[in-house]
């Protein structure tokens, strides 16, 4: 990865522990990481440009992950970065709903750090 211009990732989860875990894994792989506690905070942060990827929980207060996906599809918004869901949910119909709403992936917790990094590299085009 270009260390002068690392890819920026937004991690969205209401659990501090999960945010720290994911951020640590991505930071050690050279990504620049920002955090949000729910979909509403994520939406605020995504108004600024420069994010290459969003990794997002599903069940969160205020605005959940699926609601965030729907909000990002608003025609009035500029193109959003790819969104990958990271959740303890594994139901096929939820996965299908997320896919139709524009999600690029679905990771079921607990996910190994190297798997997470591999997904992040693939979706951000990092070798």
């Amino acid at each position, binding site marked *: 990865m270009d260390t002068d211009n690392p890819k920026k990732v937004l991690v969205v989860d209401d659990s501090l*522990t999960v945010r720290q875990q994911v951020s640590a894994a991505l930071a050690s792989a050279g990504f620049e990481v920002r955090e949000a506690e729910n979909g509403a905070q994520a939406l605020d942060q995504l108004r600024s440009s420069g994010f290459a990827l969003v990794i997002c929980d599903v*069940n969160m207060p205020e605005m959940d992950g699926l609601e965030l996906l729907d909000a990002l599809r608003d025609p009035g918004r500029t193109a959003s970065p790819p969104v990958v869901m990271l959740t303890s*949910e594994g139901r*096929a119909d939820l*996965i299908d709903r997320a896919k139709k709403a524009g999600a*690029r992936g679905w990771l079921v*917790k607990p*996910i*190994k750090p190297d798997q997470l990094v591999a997904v992040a590299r693939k979706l951000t085009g990092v070798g």
Partner: protein
Amino acid sequence: MGGGAGVVTDPLMRAGATSAQILHSLEVTTMSDQGADTLMNRDERTIFSSVLLEAARKLLASDNRSWEIAGDQIEPLDLSGTLVASIGLSNADGLRGKLVLIAQPEFYRSVYPRGFHHGELSDAAIADWASELANQLLGRIKNLLSAHGLDFSLSIPTVIGGDRVRLLCRDSHSCLEHSVRIDGHQVDLLLEVAHSGGRKIISGDAGPVAAASEGSALLF
């Protein structure tokens, strides 16, 4: 918020005699006020019990931790510094319930993800991890129950800490209890499930609900 109920504080605590920290107030009544609930029958209790223990063992006793089932009844707790994590479940068909995970902070510290923290973990970090564990445990239970055609949504977890906490279950027929020891730490598990629609909880008519397993990474 779903997932509350069945947890009350000791009278001494209400009188302010201890330094209990209530992080969230819980409703006490959940089930029987809603009309004729269908409670777990014997076969369903067997299935739910098996699923609860399997999910808990795989999540909480991974990394070669020792696992011992101490009993199928939770004694009235009087442990100092107990952390109780509660998370609800429900679906549009009238299924309701909750999972409650009870242990001392030392247990949650012992299973905190390795390699992600240096130094002393704060009380807030431990409480957050307890809520995440409850979330992941109910997620695993949900995935296991999908094979029986059962599907439900998870609520946002709640964590309560207190010096003297007593767990009460409103209706024992709707509750499953297990007490386990993981690397010597006592961990109590309660799963409460009932159906308000007057139907069997696991009907046997529905086919398995497809679900991705833990650790899956799907790219579209």
